[in-house]
Each structure stands twice: as C-alpha cells, then as structure tokens.
C-alpha cells in the first residue's frame, strides 16, 4: 500500500465524515444561532457604553465565532467519532485494509472541514455587516472627516477566522485524543471542555506565578504551561481589523500557524497511540 493510497483512504473517510456532519441538526442549529447572533450585533450595540460601533460589532462577531466554534468543534468531533463506534461501522471499516491512523486522520479532517465551513460563513456574515455599517457611517459623516483609507480592514476579519480555525484544529485533535481512551460521548465532551478552559487560562497562571521564588507551585505552573497549549495566543482580535498602531506582523501569523500545526499533529499521533490499543 503506497502513501498515495493512504491519502486516498483518508480523503474518502474525511469526505464521508464531512457530509455526515453537515447533515447533522446540531451543526445546522448552531450555525443558524451564530449567524443570528452576529446579525443582531447592531441591536446589542445599544447596550454599549463606550466602544465604537464597528469595534463593538467586530468584538461581538469574533466572540460568537470563538464561543460557538469551540462548542461545535468539541461536540461535532466527539459525535462523529462515537457515531462510528456505537453503530459498529468503525469495525466494518477497520476490517478492511485501513489503518487506525488513517481512520483518525479522516475523522479529524472531516471535522476540521466542517469547522472551515462554519468559520467561513461566520466571517462572511460579519464582514457583510461591517461593510453595511461602514458604508452607512461614511455616508452619515459625509465631508466631516477625511479618511486616509478604509475604516475596516476586511482581510483581517478573514485572517482572524483563519487563525481561529487553526485553534479549532488543535481543539478537535485534543478531543480525538480524549475520545481515543474514553468510553462515552459525555465524558469526552466534558473533559474536552475542561481542557479548553485550561488551555485558554494557563497563561494567567503562568503570569501569576512567574514572579514566585522556586517552590513546588512554581514547578507545577511551569509544567502546566509546558503540557497544555496556550490558546490565548490566538486571541488577536484587538490587533486586527482597525487601523491600530501595531498591526500583527506576518512573522507572528506564521509562528501561530506553525504552533497550531505542530500541536494538531502531536495530539493526533497521541490519539493514535491510545486508539491502536483500543478494542472496538
């Protein structure tokens, strides 16, 4: 069996997984809720106490993308994995010349493609709303202000979406890793959510204890920082979209992409280590 055949099998499993996922009611409901929420950001703006209109809409959209994206990434990956286990279709598939790693990679890619669709739709809706409000704002201000360039950098909206998608990749791979040794759907979802919270907050612990003198707490926090990936790295919304003094350098974007890819591959390989021993 050549590598090319292996890629073909992964592509086939990923394609089927993606189609299954898109047909899920959960995905469609979550997508509709997210679109509605991003669409209603202009309504929520009336509760705002000081941020500019466009900034508020952007924050709100980015928030919705991360919040619902994280939920979808964890639940969809879990459901897609356990669906095969519970219906015994995994058994049929693995009885054929399909490696367990190919199965896992296919499942991951299917779920990740789903996240790509979700992220793309949300960023598209957010960009459309920003464009609508941007145009209205410029028309209202008329000649009062002279603009050096566009108010919103739309490319940055998509860049943020892309980096969030990278983060969802780590999250999905991490969920697969948990699923590889877990027996139930619920356990996988709960543990994955806890992992998400730890990864999102570990930098605070690191910051808080960095000034401490050597002690077991310091080593514990250092270990925590090493074991769990830092998801806060991808929280770059404040540095994007608007004409800020320090735009995000390309080197940082590349570093974030590299970081995301390394962790995704590592968690997939760790999932494979567990899954290889698992009896289906």
């Amino acid at each position, binding site marked *: 069996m050549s590598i090319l055949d292996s890629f073909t099998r992964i592509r086939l499993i990923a394609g089927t997984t993606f189609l299954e996922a898109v047909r899920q009611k959960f995905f469609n409901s979550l997508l509709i809720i997210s679109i509605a929420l991003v669409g209603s950001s202009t309504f929520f703006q009336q509760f705002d106490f000081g941020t500019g209109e466009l900034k508020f809409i952007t924050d709100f959209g980015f928030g919705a993308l991360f919040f619902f994206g994280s939920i979808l990434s964890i639940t969809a990956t879990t459901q897609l994995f356990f669906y095969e286990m519970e219906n015994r279709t995994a058994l049929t598939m693995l009885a054929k010349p399909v490696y367990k790693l190919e199965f896992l990679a296919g499942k991951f890619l299917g779920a990740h493609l789903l996240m790509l669709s979700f992220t793309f739709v949300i960023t598209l809706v957010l960009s459309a709303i920003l464009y609508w409000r941007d145009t209205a704002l410029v028309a209202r201000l008329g000649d009062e202000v002279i603009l050096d360039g566009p108010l919103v950098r739309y490319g940055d909206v998509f860049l943020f979406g892309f980096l969030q998608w990278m983060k969802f990749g780590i999250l999905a791979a991490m969920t697969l890793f948990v699923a590889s040794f877990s027996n139930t759907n619920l356990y996988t979802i709960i543990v994955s959510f806890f992992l998400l919270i730890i990864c999102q907050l570990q930098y605070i612990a690191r910051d808080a204890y960095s000034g401490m003198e050597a002690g077991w707490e310091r080593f514990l926090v250092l270990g925590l920082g090493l074991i769990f990936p830092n998801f806060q790295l991808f929280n770059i919304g404040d540095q994007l979209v608007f004409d800020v003094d320090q735009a995000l350098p390309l080197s940082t974007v590349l*570093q974030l992409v590299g970081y995301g890819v*390394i962790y995704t591959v590592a968690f997939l390989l760790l999932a494979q280590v567990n899954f290889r021993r698992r009896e289906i």
Partner: protein
Amino acid sequence: MSLLQHPLTLRLRRILFVLLILSLLGLLTRPLEGPAWRVVKSGQPEMNLEAIEGALGQGLVVGVLGGFRAILADFLWIRTNTIWERRDRVKMDAMVRLVTTLDPRPEFFWINGSRMIAYDVPNWRIREEGGYSEVPEARQRAIDLEQSHQAFDLLDEALEFHPDRAKLYLEKGQIYLNRLKDDANAAKWFLQASKQADAPYYAARIYAELLRKQGKNAEAYTYLKDLHRELPNVPYAQKGIILERIRELENTLEIPFWERFQAVVEPVLEAPRKAPAFDVPEPHDHAGHSH
C-alpha cells in the same frame, strides 16, 4: 503478575508517557510561542486572576473565555447601576472592579465608577452613620478622603491603560476640587489634563482660575498670557474670557499701563478646529458636571 505488568502500573506508565511527550512538545514550541506571545500580549487588555474569579462568581467565565468580554462588561455595568440604586456599596465596588477588569478599554466605566466611589459612597456612609448634622466634620472629612483615595486608585489604574486621555486627569482634578476642596492638588491635575492632546480648552482656564484662588496671581497672569498667545482664535477657545481675566489680574497686580499685555487681533477662523468631543456633556454620564 509482576508489579510492572499490573494494569494500574501500565496505565500510569501511559499517562507519564503522554505527559512527557507533551512537556517535550511544550519545550519544542517555545521558540514559536515566546515571540508570538510577546506580540499578542502587548496588544490585548490584560486578564488576571481577579477578573476570572469575579467572572466565575457571576457565572460568566465561559462567556469571558468566549470573547464576549465587551458585551458582558456592558451588561454587568447595567447591573452595577441597579446595585448603585440599592446603595450596596461593597457589591458596587466589586462590580466596578470586575467591569473595568473585564473591559478596560472604555473610559466610561473608569470615570463613572470613580464618580460613584468618590461622590455617592461618602454620602451613603455619612447617612448610615446618622446624617450630615450628626456626624462630626472630622469624620465626614475622613470618609471623603478614604473614598476619594479609592477613586484615585481606580483612576490611576485607568491611566495605565489610557495614559494620554485628558478626561481621566480631569476627573482626578474634579474630585480634588469638588469633593476634597483641595485647590492645590486640583490645579496639578487640571494642568496635567491641559497638556494632553485631546484636552478641552477649559482645562487650562480652570488651572489658571485655581492659581488665582490660591493667591498665585502673578503665576496665573504669566500662564494666561502664554495661553492667550498659544490658542487659536476659535469660539471654543474663549479667548475673550481669557483676555478679560488677564485684565482683571493686571488691575489686581497693578501692572503699569505700558507693561500690560498686548493682545494680537486675529480674525476668527471660519472652519474652527473641531472641539474635543467632551466639550459637550455626555448624555449618559453618571454625574454630569458643568465647567
């Protein structure tokens, strides 16, 4: 079955293996994470343990993690106002801290939070202790000082996020002036405010008036003369009022006629420099003050 083959030992070995791999991975990715983290961290409002604890207490941690910090801070601010109406000062103080920690970007939270702490809470405390007629002046003064210093702490924190915003310097000056009746310290802060790029024209005028109030007429005279020369001739700059005050000071200081200030007559600019936004009072300010 040997100890090494025991299922528990095997499981423990597997866990240790995973932890070891992840730790190595952490070390391997440090060259990527370190520089990226420095760039990302410099551009985002800091989230600390205090904020997380507060958000946890409000059941909001998932929302905070999810990036809805701005909207959650807005909703918590509405709740802060409900608590303010109930005059629950301990909870109000905690809520102001939580809101400003969650979203330190809008000045609105800092300014109105400090106003609540410096102006409203002393009134509540004095009333709790029996009212203005019962509580001795010294005690009232002590309460005012204590609350004002809490408000100053909040504003100092705000200045770490917005070091060049005149509004925050003005707020400190206003508290010294209106609550503590401390003209000398108020003058310092009005001067600081007037030096900021977005300073309203009145900040410098109030500074000069405070110098006069302290009896520093000569200093006020020199300052106003310089101010009159520097300001553009636009309606918001109120150069007429400044000239009037210069003349008053010349009379007070008995400046000889031939040494008096010669104002250059300039045409009023057709398209005046746009007045700073807060020359106009904000519609939803917590405690509006006229200048």
